[in-house]
């Protein structure tokens, strides 16, 4: 009889310990790990767009980005140069995709990756840059 009583207390204590331990683990693992990836990628996208927006034009447009958005033919002409420029500008472990009304420059955006986004407007249209880690 005495054994049964003692074991119930032990079981209760064990359950209590387990419960508290669970709560502890939740705190230790469950606090949202601050996603520095998102912040960094957003900074990369914003910086790249800012730099491109003030880049001197290669032809007669206002800026390099404006030339890209001006028309389909100028987009086709500037596409390659813009891809090389972005490739050099962004760190090696970052992929990019630049979206304009006339088409996109860069790589295909994979599913489920954290992306940094920045948008800017030019006199001839809007440009959106998405960047993500390889």
């Amino acid at each position, binding site marked *: 009889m005495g054994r049964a009583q003692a074991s119930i*207390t032990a079981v209760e204590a064990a359950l209590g*310990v387990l419960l508290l331990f669970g*709560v502890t683990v939740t705190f230790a693992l469950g606090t949202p790990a*601050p996603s520095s990836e998102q912040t960094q990628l957003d*900074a990369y996208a914003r910086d790249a767009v800012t*730099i491109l927006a*003030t880049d001197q034009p290669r032809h007669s447009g206002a800026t390099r980005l404006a030339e890209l958005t001006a028309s389909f033919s100028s987009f086709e002409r500037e596409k390659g140069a813009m891809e090389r420029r972005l490739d050099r500008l962004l760190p090696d472990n970052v992929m990019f995709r630049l979206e304009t009304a006339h088409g996109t420059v860069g790589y295909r955006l994979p599913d489920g990756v954290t992306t940094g986004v920045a948008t800017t407007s030019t006199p001839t249209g809007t440009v959106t840059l998405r960047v993500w880690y390889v």
Partner: protein
Amino acid sequence: MRAQTSLPALGFALLLLTGVLVLGVAVADGALLDADRAALQRQAAVDLSDRLVAADAPLTERANVLNATAVAGLDARTLRTRYGVPAETAVAVALDGTTLASAGTVDEGTTITRLVVVEDTTERTLTPSFPARNRVTLPRRTERARLTIRPRSGTTVTTVRANDRVVLHNESGLRGTFAVTLSPTRTTQFSFEASALLSRGSVDITYYPATTEKARLEVTVDG
């Protein structure tokens, strides 16, 4: 009798639970504090880097375009006074891995990398040969230029225009070295009004085009 036998067990159980509870609270507190600190550090790093590359910042020409001379002048005192880095926080600012300035000792901290362009001006001289007209276009944009005008005897240069704007004029003839201010946002074409077609060597134009180089600005905040 039954209650008495379970008393030591109860005491032990309570002790164990209290111990685990204290441990749990300590761990939870530590985890929350860590999360807070990392987030605050990151925010501080982002804020500082934003202020360093802002369009109207002391270091920049335009947004994200750093002036090479200004960047070389950045030091710990500037970081503390102008950028308001608190005394208990350690920060380091590096350009392409080379530390520009650091205040305090940075052990780990949080780093944010910004993409920037470092702009420096070089000096170039152009000696136009004027094959058909007294006109020359500078190959690069510049915000100022120095013109040395020494026409052959018998030839007088009365007016110099930059993109149809009169920058120099003297009815009795221009001779010597003149500094002119130009628009950095347009390509400049100089046209010279002279009594005859100018020969090569009559005019030297020294201009200061900006050369840019991409770089990474790394801002690390610790504490």
